[in-house]
């Protein structure tokens, strides 16, 4: 999720077919610059090198989100059911999911945090069992990593409780943009 502004100029984005580092691209209507989806930077065009400001957001299950925010508004596309994308969550429900319940394998998921020039990948397999927030320092900033196993989600907050922009993504995708990333270890 990004603030749709370059400087003070509001931008409108469209999907550009084609990829960079196996990652999606989008193009702004104002300058026709092409932006990479994972790190929010323009890669080609008038604004090449410019970053968009990432806005904190949470990728999670509908069950977790509506329980946490029952007054939420929900976007819809009238007349269109959308396309299924589910994670197979071995921690919820019966150990062997029904065939119809099978989803994408989340074993390579993790929370990617990039702050002040340092990148850390908190692998889902390492953090999903956390009973309390994980304390970590990224880019010199003390953070707490919160996890909800049933919601297949994690997020990062500063010590003052402010949520920062981080992304639940597959390890390979994160490494493509942050090859120097560190992987969270319990003592990190």
């Amino acid at each position, binding site marked *: 999720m990004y603030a749709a502004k370059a400087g003070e100029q509001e931008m409108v*984005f469209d999907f550009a077919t084609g990829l960079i580092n196996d990652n*999606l691209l989008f193009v702004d209507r104002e300058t026709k610059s092409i932006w990479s989806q994972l790190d929010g930077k323009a890669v080609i065009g008038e604004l090449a090198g410019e970053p968009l400001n990432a806005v904190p957001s949470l990728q999670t299950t509908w069950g977790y989100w509506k329980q946490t925010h029952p007054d939420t*508004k929900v976007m819809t596309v009238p007349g269109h059911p959308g396309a299924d*994308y589910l994670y197979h969550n071995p921690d919820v429900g019966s150990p062997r999911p029904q065939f119809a319940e099978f989803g994408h394998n989340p074993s390579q998921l993790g929370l990617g945090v990039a702050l002040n020039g340092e990148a850390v990948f908190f692998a889902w397999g390492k953090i999903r069992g956390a009973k309390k927030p994980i304390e970590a320092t990224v880019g010199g900033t003390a953070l707490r990593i919160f996890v909800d196993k049933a919601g297949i989600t994690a997020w990062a907050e500063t010590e003052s409780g402010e949520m920062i922009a981080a992304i639940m993504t597959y390890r390979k995708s994160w490494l493509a943009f942050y090859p120097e990333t560190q992987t969270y270890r319990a003592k990190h």
Partner: protein
Amino acid sequence: MQPMPGEDLALIDAAVRQTPANFPFLEADQVKLRNRDLVLGISQDGEHWAIPIRFLGLYEVLNLRLGKDPVAATW
């Protein structure tokens, strides 16, 4: 750019799919989502919005105005 995942970089004409605008937002009890459906949730100034991934996947990028500022939701 790469035409497909894992392919080498190549000079390609990347077709652009224009993203529709003005998607409606409903109350939680007005939508039919399963608990396991994924959403992208955002909270600003005491308000909360959920963008179902099943719709984000259709368009890859959505232009939304959730609070006072425009946002681009991607996934």
